[in-house]
């Protein structure tokens, strides 16, 4: 069937900012979709508020709108663009929700826009609990029994009927607040009582618990001709009870016989057919490990995180196919892009095993609750491919970049048995490692299975890995046979050396990594590379998508072209997000344009960089020295580019250079000069550039002495960190000592930096340098003053409040540093402005978080130019000049987005430690409008009237009063507790007094919970114990979706914006006689 001829222009909705649960996978999906639609000659209009994405590059669609994804803006774009169709299924839940809103508001009908892919009824049937259950009943598909209750007694009665344990889910509470699994009546009574109280509509869902069953997922596709296929199925290592986004997952399923596989496959097809979906769909099942009994847990009528994983796991481009189907193609007529000779209507078959491990933010949020449950907490994930589970899981573990390279967690040996058992029983982020620890303690497989409910098959593999560690340890001389076996199981040279050291002493042969490597190569033990081809080699394929394994045949064909390897940035984590993937992709494109063969190494399944169409060759491998070296030896590139892959790639530069690999771009020595504190200070001294006073200390005593000398408050942090990890402002000796205890434990090999804390305006610059010319696309001004991490600040381009002199200083310093460092490529510099003087805070000799934003708003293709510079092209020859690029007439604002609602116990206060997971952009001719769009786009609700609850620390009162007066004058009501209320009244404002937490109900928390305040302004009182009132107020706001502002700078910006956008009413001037 040909494509639908009625469609000429299509609107695609993106997924907006990166938050936990909705990440880079939708950039991958959206990018593929836009490309697929353009291929067909359609006009593509895209809306997405997230500037850090490839899909919002202007060449991805005919028109790109980086605007808030809400009814108002999307409706306006629809009216302006008059698209024929709307494709919402590639923009995650955001896209789907937007489609529903547009349909319900009648916009689609009014403007005659056809909803493509999934019909409204299907969305409703999948999302609405009752409709979903009715549909499942109709299809004869089992779902766990459940009932909605409004009283504790009803809950008890129902639980008695279905038996314990049961799950309690309070209705409409964010992040599952107040819910949980209960084992008996007593727990049930307590939980339901709480749940009813938390639920704004006083309802709880009581559901039969199926925790402990196997969790299996199917990725299904269907076209308008009712052709249905399963792209991939996946089995979770963690049994039901842990969110699939937080589970370790393998593909394909490993413990299902064909009967079970086909039973669930048939059920999936039945469901996608009943929903009439034209595109992709994800079905999640719970399968009883002791019978054929199964339950349908959830259906996602759209492309999802799992489908991104399935696409990378199989090579089958789900999003691209979904887009083609949406415009009328059928699966049997779309050519399978992997083989080029077969069609998309088939089911990929794998000849390898894929492991996915989530990447959690608990290294940054040490206070967060690490237990895993039904609320997803991971920010990203890694994927690895191997020919055995052992190989695959080992590769995944070392891709995580959490300081481990085998299934061994530092410090696990010190956990006592009781704690170990309880942590095995209730999953947290480290359970995989703890299982290995239990085996090391000699616990039996049966016992561990009884405790964890993890399938015997997986546990057996971990036991084998642990057992083989002993073989490596104990063998008197490391035989070739053992070495080969170890490599086939995925052990690294480093792990083998470590084990030899443990077993044979540090003086023994092969007790250091380099020796193992040399011995291994001398024995001819080298990895081979196999292709991911969707068809297990049944058909010839030309996909340049490879993984390593230790077998016989190598499938990589040598090529005569000059090659360059670009290192990716690994899993998405706070501080190293999608922005780095954006730059990586642009670097690869620039390389290909320049006629080089671009080779990517990366392990993040969610991204555009790991789409096999992006590069000439994709190696899906850990970004670990050994794995990277192996690829380098295979490919023999002219060099490796490390500056686009964030700190991950930069950290590899040293070891690679030492191994004789040529690092392209800024030299290793310059990187070191920028990152090594002492050398960096010397550099600035040499150039006579100011920086906040500070020094490097290596002991606690030294730290105290230095801090006193500089004068509190001081900024402390360990050296060589990412995203401001463990950076803090401390105000006293006492705080410093407690910080030193934690920080030094985090990073024992590296010293700690102590700086004077300057409370000034922060600005940031990205520059491109070819060693001669320094091009500065723009200066960004941060709204929050120094002390809030630059990634968490609202950034404005072009700067709105900087004097020409300050700009000149920043430009001048940037040019001098870039030249002195002989930068070739990108450099990012952060400054603080203090008394009209510009001080340098830090220099990052690499691509930064702001590159995509700045590239988009200045129209300077930064990563592309940087790559050309790295290849030896002179900026001058491209027509660029030294200095600052002319400023844009539009104002653009980058607003951070947080995922606090998903992370219990994390303090939403903005600090030097980065906490945001994503960003949005607002752009307009007026700053106030741009900011408004940014804030709205970030999810902030900004009512034109309402109430503000203020609890202000004494140190901030003076400043806060004047800002609050502004809101007061705009007609907002002020609510405040004790001291703040006094201060406001004294300043002549009418305030409604609110009870503190310690006072009687209703107190401040009740007001927030019941929606009586639209904003909470809370500034930090010192002391970080979560029990503090301030913490509870901030958490309550976050959990109830109330805007919580902790920096007065943000509050002030908000006020200025409201004042500028508001029509003010003032009485007519009285006529003078």
């Amino acid at each position, binding site marked *: 069937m040909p494509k639908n001829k009625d469609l000429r222009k299509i609107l695609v909705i993106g997924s907006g900012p990166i938050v936990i649960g909705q990440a880079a996978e939708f950039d991958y999906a959206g990018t593929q979709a836009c490309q697929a639609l353009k291929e067909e000659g359609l006009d593509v209009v895209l809306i997405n508020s997230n500037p850090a994405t490839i899909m919002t590059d202007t060449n991805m669609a005919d028109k790109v709108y980086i605007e808030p994804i809400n009814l108002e803006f999307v409706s306006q774009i629809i009216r302006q663009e008059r698209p024929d169709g709307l494709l919402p299924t590639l923009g995650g839940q955001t896209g789907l929700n937007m489609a529903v809103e547009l349909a319900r508001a009648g916009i689609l009908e009014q403007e005659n826009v056809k909803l493509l892919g999934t019909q409204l009824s299907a969305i409703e049937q999948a999302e609405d609990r009752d409709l979903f259950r009715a549909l499942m009943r109709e299809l004869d598909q089992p779902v766990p029994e459940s009932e909605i209750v409004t009283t504790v007694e009803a809950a008890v009665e129902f639980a008695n009927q279905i038996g314990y344990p049961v799950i309690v889910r309070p209705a409409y509470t964010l992040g599952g607040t107040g819910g949980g699994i209960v084992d008996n009546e007593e727990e049930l009574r307590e939980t339901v009582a709480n749940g009813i109280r938390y639920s704004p509509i006083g309802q709880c869902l009581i559901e039969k618990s199926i925790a402990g069953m196997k969790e299996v997922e199917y990725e299904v596709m269907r076209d308008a001709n009712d052709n249905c296929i399963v792209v991939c199925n996946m089995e979770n290592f963690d049994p039901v009870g842990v969110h699939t986004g937080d589970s370790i997952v393998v593909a394909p399923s490993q*413990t299902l016989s064909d009967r079970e596989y086909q039973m669930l496959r048939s059920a999936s097809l039945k469901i996608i057919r009943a929903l009439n979906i034209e595109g992709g769909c994800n079905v999640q099942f719970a399968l009883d490990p002791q019978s054929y009994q199964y339950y349908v847990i959830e259906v996602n009528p759209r492309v999802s995180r799992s489908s991104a994983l399935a696409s990378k796991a199989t090579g089958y481009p789900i999003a691209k196919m979904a887009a083609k189907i949406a415009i009328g193609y059928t699966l049997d007529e779309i050519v399978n892009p992997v083989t080029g000779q077969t069609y998309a209507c088939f089911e990929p078959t794998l000849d390898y095993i894929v492991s996915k491990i989530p990447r959690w933010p608990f290294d940054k949020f040490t206070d967060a609750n690490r237990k895993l449950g039904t609320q997803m907490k991971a920010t990203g994930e890694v994927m690895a491919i191997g020919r055995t589970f052992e190989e695959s899981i080992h590769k995944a573990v070392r891709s995580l970049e959490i300081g481990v390279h085998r299934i061994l967690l530092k410090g696990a040996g010190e956990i006592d048995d009781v704690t170990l058992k309880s942590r095995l029983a209730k999953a947290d982020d480290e359970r995989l490692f703890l299982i290995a620890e239990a085996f090391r303690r000699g616990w039996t497989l049966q016992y561990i299975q009884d405790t964890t409910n993890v399938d015997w098959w997986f546990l057996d593999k971990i036991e084998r890995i642990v057992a083989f560690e002993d073989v490596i340890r104990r063998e008197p001389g490391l035989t070739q046979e053992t070495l080969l076996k170890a490599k086939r199981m995925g052990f690294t040279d480093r792990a083998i050396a470590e084990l030899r050291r443990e077993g044979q002493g540090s003086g023994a042969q092969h007790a250091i990594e380099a020796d193992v490597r040399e011995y291994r190569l001398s024995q001819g033990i080298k990895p081979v590379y196999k292709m991911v081809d969707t068809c297990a080699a049944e058909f*010839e394929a030309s996909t340049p998508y490879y993984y390593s394994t230790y077998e016989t045949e190598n499938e990589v064909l040598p090529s005569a072209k000059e090659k360059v390897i670009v290192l990716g940035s690994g899993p998405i984590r706070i501080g190293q997000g999608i922005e780095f993937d954006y730059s990586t992709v642009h670097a690869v494109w620039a390389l290909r344009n320049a006629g080089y063969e671009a080779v990517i190494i990366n392990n993040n399944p969610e991204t555009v960089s790991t789409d096999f169409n992006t590069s000439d060759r994709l190696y899906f491998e850990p970004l670990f020295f050994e794995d990277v070296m192996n690829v380098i030896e295979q490919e023999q590139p002219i060099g490796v580019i490390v500056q686009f892959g964030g700190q991950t790639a930069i950290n590899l530069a040293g070891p690679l250079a030492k191994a004789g690999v040529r690092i392209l771009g800024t030299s290793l020595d310059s990187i070191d000069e920028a990152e090594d504190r002492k050398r960096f200070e010397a550099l600035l001294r040499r150039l006579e550039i100011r920086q906040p006073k500070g020094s490097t200390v290596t002991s606690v005593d030294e730290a105290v002495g230095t801090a006193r000398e500089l004068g509190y408050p001081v900024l402390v942090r360990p050296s060589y960190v990412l995203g401001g990890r463990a950076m803090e402002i401390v105000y006293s000796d006492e705080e410093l000592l407690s910080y030193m205890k934690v920080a030094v434990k985090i990073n024992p090999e590296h010293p700690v930096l102590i700086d004077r804390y300057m409370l000034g305006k922060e600005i940031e610059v990205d520059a491109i340098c070819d060693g001669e010319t320094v091009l500065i696309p723009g200066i960004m001004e941060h709204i929050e003053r120094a002390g809030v991490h630059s990634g968490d600040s609202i950034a404005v381009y072009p700067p709105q409040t900087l004097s020409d002199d300050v700009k000149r200083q920043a430009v001048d310093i940037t040019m001098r540093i870039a030249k002195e460092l002989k930068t070739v490529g990108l450099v990012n510099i952060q400054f603080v402005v203090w008394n009209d003087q510009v001080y340098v805070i830090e220099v990052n000799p690499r691509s930064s978080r702001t590159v995509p934003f700045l590239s988009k708003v200045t129209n300077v293709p930064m990563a592309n130019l940087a790559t050309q510079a790295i290849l030896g092209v002179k900026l001058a020859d491209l027509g660029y000049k030294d200095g600052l690029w002319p400023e844009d007439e539009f104002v653009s604002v980058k607003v951070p987005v947080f995922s606090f609602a998903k992370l219990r116990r994390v303090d939403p206060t903005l600090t030097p430690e980065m906490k945001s997971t994503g960003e949005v952009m607002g752009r307009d001719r007026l700053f106030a409008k741009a900011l408004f769009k940014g804030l709205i786009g970030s999810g902030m609700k900004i009512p034109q009237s309402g109430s503000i609850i203020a609890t202000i620390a004494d140190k901030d009162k003076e400043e806060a009063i004047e800002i609050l007066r502004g809101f007061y004058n705009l007609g907002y009501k002020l609510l405040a507790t004790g001291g703040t209320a006094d201060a406001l009244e004294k300043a002549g404002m009418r305030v409604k007094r609110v009870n503190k937490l310690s006072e009687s109900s209703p107190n401040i928390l009740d007001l927030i919970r019941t929606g009586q305040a639209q904003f909470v302004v809370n500034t930090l009182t010192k002391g970080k114990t979560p029990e503090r009132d301030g913490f509870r107020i901030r958490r309550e706001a976050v959990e109830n979706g109330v805007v919580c502002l902790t920096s007065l700078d943000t509050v002030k910006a908000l006020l200025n914006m409201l004042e500028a956008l508001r029509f003010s009413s003032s009485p007519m001037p009285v006529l003078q006689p």
Partner: protein
Amino acid sequence: MQARLLLEDGTLFTGQGFGAEGASTGEVVFNTGITGYQEVLSDPSYCGQIVTMTFPLIGNYGINRDDFEAIRPYIHGFVVRRHEDVPSNWRAQYTLDRLFKEYGIVGISEVDTRMLTRILRQHGTMKGILTTGSERVEELKERLNASSLLRDQVARTSTKTVFSSPGNRERIVLIDYGAKSGILRELTQRGCDVVVVPHDTTADEIRRLSPDGIQLSNGPGDPKDVPQAVETLRRLIGEYPIFGICLGHQLFALACGADTEKLKFGHRGGNHPVKELESGRCYITSQNHGYTVKEQSIAGTDLEVTHINNNDKTIEGLKHKKFPAFTVQYHPEAAPGPFDSSYLFDRFLDMIREHKRNNPQRPRQAQLAEALRGELQYAQK
């Protein structure tokens, strides 16, 4: 225990032996199914073949009582990347290793099965010898060259005696050319009264069973190795509604005057797309065949192509233009593989019912009277 696999082209794979010790020869083929190894290794259509699974981990869920497609396996060897010897599944009763030991089948693991598959894809299937012994390679080569592929697999795998699987609906005669249990399962699930007969049962013997329809089973090898089966079919076409599967499909085509040929490396797996030409719909099918009906040979026959493979466009389904008979090259009984095509069994039964409606038989009593009259006349002569 070391084991080796030597291919006709001289490629030698060394790995670990499992299952029985010894040596065996056969045609080396690959199957791309991820699940379903138990069904594959017990599918009689693999009789005489050394099967490699492209999925690397085999044995994960063990061997159970229920998933055999025949009472015993007929394969001549099994090649895997990794033999998983600690199965995990609630139905698992023992390991692949034990099954192979019991039936004297040699298995080899730790082989680069992807490399093997690529060789077979490029050169086509070829003979191979699998051994756990320490023979010199030259000796293996000689043995391999001296060996020839089986031609009598149908006789080896077909039932030796007639047996019935009673039901109270249509009487189906299932001609067993090496049938998978799945076919019988699908028919009995639909209430059919099934009589399974050996491959060399004559047309008259079949008539004597008064079937409502005839089901032709799958089976191993080259359809041209069983000419007498083709002969028998020729007599039955038109007389009874017929549904043929796999080898049964090929035999039917030969009986109708079409021709068959060998495929380079066959279709073996559970992910092959088949297009039903009438509806334009595509079905994911389970397949296992090394031969196919030649497209050019259809012209001039009473056959019509109903299904094609959406990838290589080979014939996947036929129907007779005049008589109630249709056949498919793939496996609607699944096991292993998707159940998407099980509707074909319903279609078969519908065809039988329609045939009955169109050919109303006289009341039983009248038939009986006629028969008695005949006997009387016979006696009088």
